[in-house]
C-alpha cells in the first residue's frame, strides 16, 4: 500500500456556462522514496489533481488516503502544515521576508522557537546548495534558481514526507532546472520523500521513477524505458 492512495477520484466544478469535470475517476498510488512525474497538456487536469493531493480541495467523488487515513477525515490545514508541502513554478516566497525568514515560517507556525527554527533553516538552506549570504536576502534580490531552492528548503522545513511540485523548473534556465531536478530526486531517493511533480518538462519527466499522463482529466501510466504502457 502506497503512502498516498488515490481511489476513483473525480473532481468537477461549476464553470461559467457548464459543469467542468477536471479529474475523472483517477486511481493511482504514490510511495515514499519515489519520484513521480505527471505530464499532460494544459487544461488536462494535472494541477487540479495536485491541488487534491495537497488537500487544497476535496474530490467530488472517490477518496484520497494518506498513510491509510482518508483525506476527507483529516484536518487538511494540519496536513499541509505537517505532512505535505508544495513547490510552485513562480516560487511564491513571501516577498517581504528574507530567505531565512521564509524557511523558518512553517516551523514557527508549528510552534518551534525562533532560535531552533533558524538553526534548522540554515541547515536546510545549506543542503539546497545556498550559502550564508542568501540568508538576509529578500526574494527580489535572488535569482530564480535561488528562489526555487529556498522554496524547496521551506517545503522541507515543515518536516513532512510528501513533496508536491507544480512546474518547478518552468521559470528556470536549463542549468538551474537541472539543479532543481537533482534536488527533487535527491529528496526522493536519499531522504525518503514521495515527490510528485507536475510538469511539461520532458527532461524532468525522464528523471522520474514513474510517469503519469493526464489527458482530459483521466490518468494513465506511461511506460518507462523497458516497460509496457498500461492503464493506471
Amino acid at each position, binding site marked *: 500500500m502506497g503512502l498516498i492512495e488515490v481511489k476513483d477520484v473525480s473532481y468537477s466544478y461549476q464553470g461559467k456556462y457548464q459543469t467542468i469535470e477536471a479529474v475523472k475517476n483517477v486511481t493511482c498510488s504514490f510511495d515514499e522514496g519515489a519520484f513521480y512525474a505527471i505530464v499532460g497538456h494544459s487544461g488536462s487536469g494535472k494541477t*487540479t489533481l495536485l491541488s487534491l493531493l495537497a488537500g487544497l480541495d476535496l474530490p467530488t467523488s472517490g477518496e484520497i488516503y494518506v498513510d491509510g487515513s482518508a483525506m476527507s477525515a483529516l484536518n487538511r490545514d494540519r496536513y*499541509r502544515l505537517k505532512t505535505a508541502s508544495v513547490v510552485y513554478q513562480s516560487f511564491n516566497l513571501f516577498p517581504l521576508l528574507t530567505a531565512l525568514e521564509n524557511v523558518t515560517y512553517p516551523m514557527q507556525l508549528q510552534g518551534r522557537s525562533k532560535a531552533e527554527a533558524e538553526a534548522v533553516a540554515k541547515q536546510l538552506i545549506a543542503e539546497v546548495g545556498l550559502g550564508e549570504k542568501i540568508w538576509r536576502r529578500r526574494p527580489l534580490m535572488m535569482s530564480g534558481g535561488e528562489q526555487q531552492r529556498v522554496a524547496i528548503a521551506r517545503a522541507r522545513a515543515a518536516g513532512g514526507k510528501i513533496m508536491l511540485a507544480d512546474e518547478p523548473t518552468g521559470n528556470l534556465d536549463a542549468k538551474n532546472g537541472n539543479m532543481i531536478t537533482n534536488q527533487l530526486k535527491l529528496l526522493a531517493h536519499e531522504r525518503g520523500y514521495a515527490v510528485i511533480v507536475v510538469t511539461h518538462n520532458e527532461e524532468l519527466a525522464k528523471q522520474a521513477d514513474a510517469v503519469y499522463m493526464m489527458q482530459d482529466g483521466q490518468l494513465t501510466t506511461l511506460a518507462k524505458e523497458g516497460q509496457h504502457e498500461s492503464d493506471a
Partner: protein
Amino acid sequence: MFNLMRNIRRQGFKSLLVCFIGILLTLFLSLYLGNIAASRKELNHLPEVLPVASHITNISGSKSVGLLIDGGLIEKIKATNMVNNLRYTVQLSANFAPETPEEELGYKYIAIMGVNDISAFSLLSAEDIEWADGVAEDFLSGRQAGVIVQENFLENNDLNIGDRVWLSLYSIDYGEKLNEIYYKKIDDIALEIVGSYALNVTQFGEFILPDMICPVGWVEETLQEYDKKFYADSASFVVSDPLKLNDFKAAMRSFGFQPVNAQADSYSLSGFGLLVNDETFVRSAGSLQKNLTMMTVFLPLILLLIVLVGYIASYLVMQSRRSEVAVMRSLGVSQSRCILSLSAENALLVLLGCLVGLAAAVSFTGIGLSGALVITAVFFVSYMLGVVAALLKLSRMPVMEVLTKSE
C-alpha cells in the same frame, strides 16, 4: 502573528492609507455623534433656557389678578409635582381694631396681600425690604403671624418695625354677580411688624397696592381656623418638565382648567383659565427634536457606511496580498488564523488612526472620555466587521489557482 509590527511597517504606504481612513472616519463619526449628543443636551437643558411659565386667568384670559381661585385647586397643583416656583397671592382688607371696647378708632381701609414668595408681587424685590433683626427672607413662605409694612404707612401711622398692630381682618368676596365687593370679617387679630418695604409706585392699574404683606400660609391657616374658604387672588408657576407638556396639560384639564378663550366672558373672576406660554419652547423643542430624530434615524446608515468602507478598503488593500494569503493557506495556515492575523494588522492601524482622529475631534467638539470611548467602540466594531467580511471573502479564494499559472 509572525511579526505584526514588521508586517505593518513593510506595507508602508498601504498601512498609512488604512491609518488615514481610520482618522477620517473617526473624525466624521465624532462630529456626527457629537452633534447628536449636543442636540440631546440642548433639548434636555431647554426647560432651563426657555422655561414654560404658566398662570391662572379667568376664562377669557383678560384677568390674572383679583381672581377667585379655589384653594383646593392650588393644593391639587402642588400635589402633581408637575410645577415649580408656584407663586400665589391672596387679598385681604383690614382696619385698625380697638385694643379695648372703649377705644374709638376711625375707619381706615388697609389693603393686605398674602404671598408665599416676594416674587409673587412683581413690584417688589428682596432689596426693597428691610427686615427686623432675626427675621429671615423666607418669612413669607412660612405661617408666622406677622406683616411687612409699606414705609409710608409706618410713617403715617406712627408705627415701627417690631410693633404689634391690632387689626380687624376681612376677607374679600365679590358676590354672585361679581359686580359688588363684600368684606367678610374674620376676627380682630394682633400681628407683629417684622419688616418694611418701599414702593416706588403709587398706582398699578386696577391693582390695589398693599399697605401690608403677610405670609399666604398664615392666611390659609387662619381662614381654616375660622372655617372660611380660601380663595387665591392670583397664581403662577413654571412647568417642571416642559418635555412632558401634554401630560401636564392633561392633568390641568382633569382639575377643571380650560384653555383661555378670548371670546368668553371677560368679566368673569373665576380662576379656571390656564395660560401656558409654551409657544417659543414648543417651536424650539420641535426643531431640536426633528433634527435629533433625523440624525438618530440615519445613524444605522452611517454605521453601515463605516462597515462598507472597512470592507472595500480592506478588500482593495488586500488584493495585492492575495498571493501572500494563498501561500499562507498553502503552508497550512487555517482560514481563521489567516483572518485573525490580517485583522490584527488592520485593527492596530485603524486603532492608531482612531486615536489620532479622536484627538482632532476632541479639539473640535470637546467630547469627554466616555464619549471618546463610545466613539472608539462604535467605530472599531463597525469598521472591523467590514474588514473581517473582506478577509473572509479573500481567504476563500482558490489557493492553487492563485499560486499557479492557469493550465
